[in-house]
């Protein structure tokens, strides 16, 4: 049953917040119509009789899980929030019963109101716990679907990022804001991500999404390279002659510009996972190519399964082409965007040509 009124209808069962009355007052002050019942049975009757946008119920109440389950049939458009100090099993049951979130008491009034606003902001869409996501994946996902969302990053690096209609508009990391903060947050390898509605008007970032993200990644890469160079200087500069690089990067760039513009070349070590981009340090083709380092690992594992003595691999997945080439004891990766059959053929030809060029080039530098 859909709520015809413009005022969101909230149904609260029992006591869900420490300052219960204040929580209700706050939600009313925010323009919500709040109803309260003392039992899950009474809540079921209300759900059946009138449109409710958000139902909040403590999971410790008798019949709470049954209410969540029956709400899916009685009021499919109602968003469900649980409140509980539940263990993992009870939480799983609540989520399976359809709860968007299970809030943990003690719950303050603003916290409850915020959770209800988030539920109201999610009339459709999935909620869940996902893993193996990168921050870039998540940002691109929200960008492509033109969402307005506020992301909280928890873990070794803490911060916040806001997107408005799919564009990056704000980032904060400690005392830093804007693009600098975005660069710092993009360094995150592990952590926990939580989304909420955008409830501020800060604008510390401007520009097209791709440009903003690319600039932030470039800044991050330059910072990382600076650190690495300093480290190498401290350790080695007086004791060892400069190590000759396996590839002349200028020559490689010239080759790519001539034969395969837009492609990237990496030196990789499949056994350790180390990756170094050779052609254009500072630019991140991950943006254009949807994550080559990860796909490079995938291609490498496929090759190992097919033949541990492989010399060349080509993997085309969607619009990304990845090739691995073994030249003497070195492994190179090559990636580029591919669209259309003609470019499939061209990719095979590019890989063959690059293999030949790398073989001669690496040999000549030894």
């Amino acid at each position, binding site marked *: 049953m859909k709520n015809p009124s413009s005022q969101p209808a909230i149904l609260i069962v029992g006591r869900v917040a420490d300052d219960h009355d204040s929580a209700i007052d706050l939600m009313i002050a925010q323009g919500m119509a709040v109803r309260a019942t003392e039992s899950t049975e009474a809540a079921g009757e209300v759900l059946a009789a009138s449109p409710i946008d958000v139902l909040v119920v403590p999971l410790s109440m008798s019949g709470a899980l049954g209410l969540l389950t029956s709400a899916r049939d009685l009021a499919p458009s109602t968003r469900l929030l649980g409140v509980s100090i539940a263990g993992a099993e009870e939480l799983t049951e609540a989520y399976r019963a359809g709860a968007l979130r299970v809030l943990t008491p003690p719950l303050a009034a603003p916290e409850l109101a915020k959770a209800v606003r988030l539920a109201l902001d999610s009339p459709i869409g999935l909620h869940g716990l996902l893993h193996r996501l990168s921050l870039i994946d998540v940002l691109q996902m929200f960008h492509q679907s033109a969402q307005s969302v506020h992301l909280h990053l928890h873990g070794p690096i803490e911060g916040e990022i806001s997107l408005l209609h799919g564009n990056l508009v704000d980032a904060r990391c400690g005392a830093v804001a804007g693009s600098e903060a975005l660069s710092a947050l993009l360094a995150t390898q592990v952590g926990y991500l939580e989304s909420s509605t955008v409830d501020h008007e800060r604008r510390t970032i401007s520009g097209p999404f791709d440009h903003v993200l690319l600039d932030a990644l470039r800044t991050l890469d330059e910072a990382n390279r600076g650190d690495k160079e300093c480290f190498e200087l401290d350790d080695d500069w007086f004791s060892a002659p400069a190590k000759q690089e396996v590839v002349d990067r200028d020559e490689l760039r010239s080759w790519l510009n001539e034969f395969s513009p837009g492609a990237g070349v990496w030196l990789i070590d499949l056994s350790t996972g180390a990756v170094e981009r050779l052609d254009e340090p500072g630019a991140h083709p991950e943006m254009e190519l*949807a994550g080559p380092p990860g796909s490079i690992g995938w291609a490498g594992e*496929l090759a190992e399964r097919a033949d541990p003595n492989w010399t060349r691999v080509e993997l085309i*997945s969607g619009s990304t082409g990845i090739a691995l080439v073994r030249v003497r004891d070195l492994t190179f990766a090559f990636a580029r965007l591919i669209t259309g059959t003609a470019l499939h053929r061209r990719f095979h030809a590019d890989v063959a040509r690059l293999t030949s060029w790398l073989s001669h080039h690496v040999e000549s530098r030894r």
Partner: protein
Amino acid sequence: MTGLSRAVRAAVVEGGALAAAVYDRSTYNVIEGYAHRELDCRAILELLLGDVMPSGPMSALHGGAPVRAARVLCVVGAERTLFVSTLETGEVIVVSTRSTMSVALGWTLVGSLTNALGEP
């Protein structure tokens, strides 16, 4: 004999492949094959098609779970080259050739099987 079985046989007998097979993408069962008993490519197909996720050091550091169905794979080994192509219609074509054979010719054989799948 169907067009597909003729094409699979021709890829080996006339085209010079060591083995050729067409698999059902969802069951990994062989739809048609010739000299294909040595292919033993189930593990590769599972990783390629996303039923098994990559788990090596590079994938652990940089991500790498396939985000979309893979279409084309070629692995040039010491003695053999393996060609794999997944089709939107749900079949997977696998052709094995000697690694001395041209890669372009290998893809041509894969193309001939792709065309044969569209024929009665």
